[in-house]
């Protein structure tokens, strides 16, 4: 399973796309596949301040509740309102329509603590065994 090349990843299976000082955050294909049918996503509100690797919400499948961690810190500037009515969008398009929130980075250097696509690919390969 190749990982999108234009993203960075966390060990907790979140992805982040950096665009200037705005980071878009979601969970990976591997994460959605492991969780199964997603029925509820609980996210922080716009304006909330979050710290890198902090617990910022939950992603719930039919049978399980999983914590959501943010790969970067900063101010939440937008949350994906579509997930409220259609949480399964995360299953269908984890890297696109199923994005979760946008964060204005407080410290761009935090991205150095994230995984490259190839490093994340290796992590997934190890966890799958």
């Amino acid at each position, binding site marked *: 399973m190749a990982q999108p090349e234009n993203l960075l990843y966390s060990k907790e299976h979140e992805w982040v796309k950096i665009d200037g000082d705005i980071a878009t955050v979601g969970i990976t294909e591997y994460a959605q596949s492991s969780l*199964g*049918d997603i*029925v509820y996503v*609980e996210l922080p509100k716009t304006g909330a301040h979050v710290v890198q690797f902090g617990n910022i919400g939950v992603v719930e499948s*039919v049978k399980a*509740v999983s914590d959501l961690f943010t790969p970067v810190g900063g101010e939440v500037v937008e949350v994906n309102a579509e997930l409220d009515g259609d949480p399964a969008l995360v299953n269908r398009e984890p890297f696109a329509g199923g994005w979760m929130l946008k964060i204005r980075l407080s410290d761009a250097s935090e991205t150095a603590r994230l995984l490259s696509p190839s490093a994340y690919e290796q992590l997934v390969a190890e966890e799958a065994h």
Partner: protein
Amino acid sequence: MTVASVPVKRTALYDEHRALGARLIPFGGFEMPVQYSSILKEHEAVRRRAGLFDLSHMGQFVLEGEGVAEWVDRLTINNVATIKPMQARYNIFTNARGGAHDDVIFYRLENRWLLVVNASNAGKMWKHLNERAGGSAVNLTNLHGRSALIAIQGPQALAMLAPHAGADLSALKYYFCAEASVYGRPAVIARTGYTGEDGFEIFVDGKYAVEIWRALLADNCATGLEPCGLGARDVLRLEAGMPLYGHELAEDITPLQAGLGWAVKFGKPEFLGKEALLAQQEADDFRRVAGIVMAGRAPAREGYRVFLGDRDVGEVRSGSTAPSVGNRNVATALVEPEAAVVGTAVAVEIRGTKHAATVVALPFYKRS
């Protein structure tokens, strides 16, 4: 550090589950499929067409002898002696406090009884029965892990199974069974299930399980039979208001608390726990299982606290998104009597926030 591990057993269908891409989890001492494709897709298959389940992890005991009915009637709440040959009946083995030791189904065959117990309780139930069998005219055989159990459940189950069954299944009534054959192999076929749909449970020797499983899937794939895991099964049974041992029933949760008073036959001269249950019924002040529907989108989960106003009145025992209840989040909760009244507005605390919910009558779903 040394971790004591319990050896995990496999059913006769383990390789089939692997080949079908199932996600396997330990359950009741066995490695069992929790889902094949998706819990929601499997759930939909059972509600609209049919699903195929491997339930071979469940405990199966054979009881023989003249004294079976009289003996078991003293250990359980429901009537056993009045079960007709080829009839099945739900029952609960109680402890002296009236709590549920296990909930079970008795199948009365021509010259023996088949007792199906929860996988997680199979060990303690085998012990329970053997410790109490002394002096009774009963003979016990444990088929756990040797005899397979395959369920086909859903509105199309009859049409899918009937052509391959050596019995007239359309004439088989709900909670009756037949000693017949499936694909030519000897089988007990029962019209029972745990999904809220019509369906059948097929008891066969483990050595025939694979060929029957494969044949049923191959012959019915065009009409939408899907292998289904324990995940879908749990959602289906919760919607149908059926208790799951360890959740709505336990050693410290009585049948009365679980809303199963209809099964408690106080007219029986004696049974284990009868006095405790009589006293509980008389006092009528016990916490009881209520159905609740969440107002919002956050699911209630096992262990979450339930509030009536500011007062903590109990806890959630099972909870799930319920596709057959308009995709609402439903739950069972063990709550104080005043919070169990249908229509009561309650709140469920989820991660520190109270979420509105309403008490409703069980079951959440009834097939039309």
